[in-house]
């Protein structure tokens, strides 16, 4: 602990102001079941790094970047798991957050980067500069991933 004059808001307020956005993103990205866990991991990582944070201009973007990393971790871990048994109950009790559970299933079937890009752009309504920041890619790559993800979603919707 050192006198830093960071100008950062107290963490309690950071959490209070952004928890809804981060949670909304996580429910869209990993589903209600895994959202809690990813949420806690996101904010604990943020808390660990917080005193060293230099760029305080876009705290929401920073938190969503960490959340994106956690969802990528989660997806990778899930791919290694044999059969997604936990998916089964979702049919009986569809997610209440999306108006269209089929669409959400389709979103979660997208490759990781496309999925993240689609959610950031179309669910969270972020400009491409921030999508790129959250994904850790160039703006062009973010644009391409969102475009490709959206194209595939349309295809999947036409099929069903």
């Amino acid at each position, binding site marked *: *602990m*050192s*006198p*830093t*004059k*960071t*100008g*950062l*808001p*107290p*963490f*309690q*307020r*950071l*959490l*209070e102001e952004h*928890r*809804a956005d*981060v*949670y*909304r993103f996580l*429910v*869209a990205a990993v589903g*209600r079941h895994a*959202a*809690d866990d990813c*949420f*806690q991991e996101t*904010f*604990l990582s943020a*808390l*660990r790094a*917080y*005193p060293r*944070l230099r760029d305080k201009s876009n705290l929401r973007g920073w938190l969503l970047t960490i959340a994106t990393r956690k969802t990528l971790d989660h997806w990778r871990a899930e791919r290694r798991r044999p059969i997604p048994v936990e998916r089964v109950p979702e049919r009986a009790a569809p997610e*209440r*957050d*999306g*108006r*269209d559970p089929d*669409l959400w299933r389709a*979103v979660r079937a997208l490759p990781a980067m496309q999925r993240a890009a*689609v959610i950031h752009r*179309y*669910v969270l309504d972020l400009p491409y500069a921030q999508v790129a920041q959250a994904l850790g890619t160039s703006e062009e790559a973010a644009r391409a991933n969102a475009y490709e993800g*959206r194209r595939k*979603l*349309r295809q999947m*919707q036409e099929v069903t």
Partner: protein
Amino acid sequence: MELRIDWDNALERSSRRAAQATLLRARSAGLVDVGYSVADSPVGRLLVASTRVGLVRLEFLEGGIDDLLDELSDALSPRVIEDASRTEAARRQLDAYFEGRVRRFRTPLDWSLAPEGFSRRVLERTAEIPFGSVSTYGDVAKRAGSPRAARAAGNALHDNPIPIVVPCHRVVPTGGGIGKYGGQEWRKEFLLRLEGALED
């Protein structure tokens, strides 16, 4: 293509619950640099803030706590989190003090917010003034090493980051009266009466 999520109460509740679970883990992982609580007292609501070292800030609340939390974040660390267990020891002693069961605070203090040098010495000497007695600005200045700095001593006391526990209310003007108080004079009078240092 409709990708918007309904912003419903369930999601608000879920995120609040997840936030509370996160803070629980943060506390047990030792990630809280500054833990704070709001406590009730006979002199109004108090903000109580403690570091791992000890009680670092006590303040009378007239309105919200946002500005005070901003100060703590700037001066100490942005890892400022509401934490009743961190502040429990200090709050218990304050309760006991107001109930007349404690005449001397034994809670560990963190002096980080008291500027080093003369100001810090003034506050340290003030902390030694016993319950029920008073001292003067000039006397405190003298004991802090600068006999003629009564006014500077007054300023240091006005900026006391830990009032009540560091009893700046026990310092009064030489010429009589109870003098000024950063936390409004009625509180100074209340504390001095509580301690029996003021005649009715």
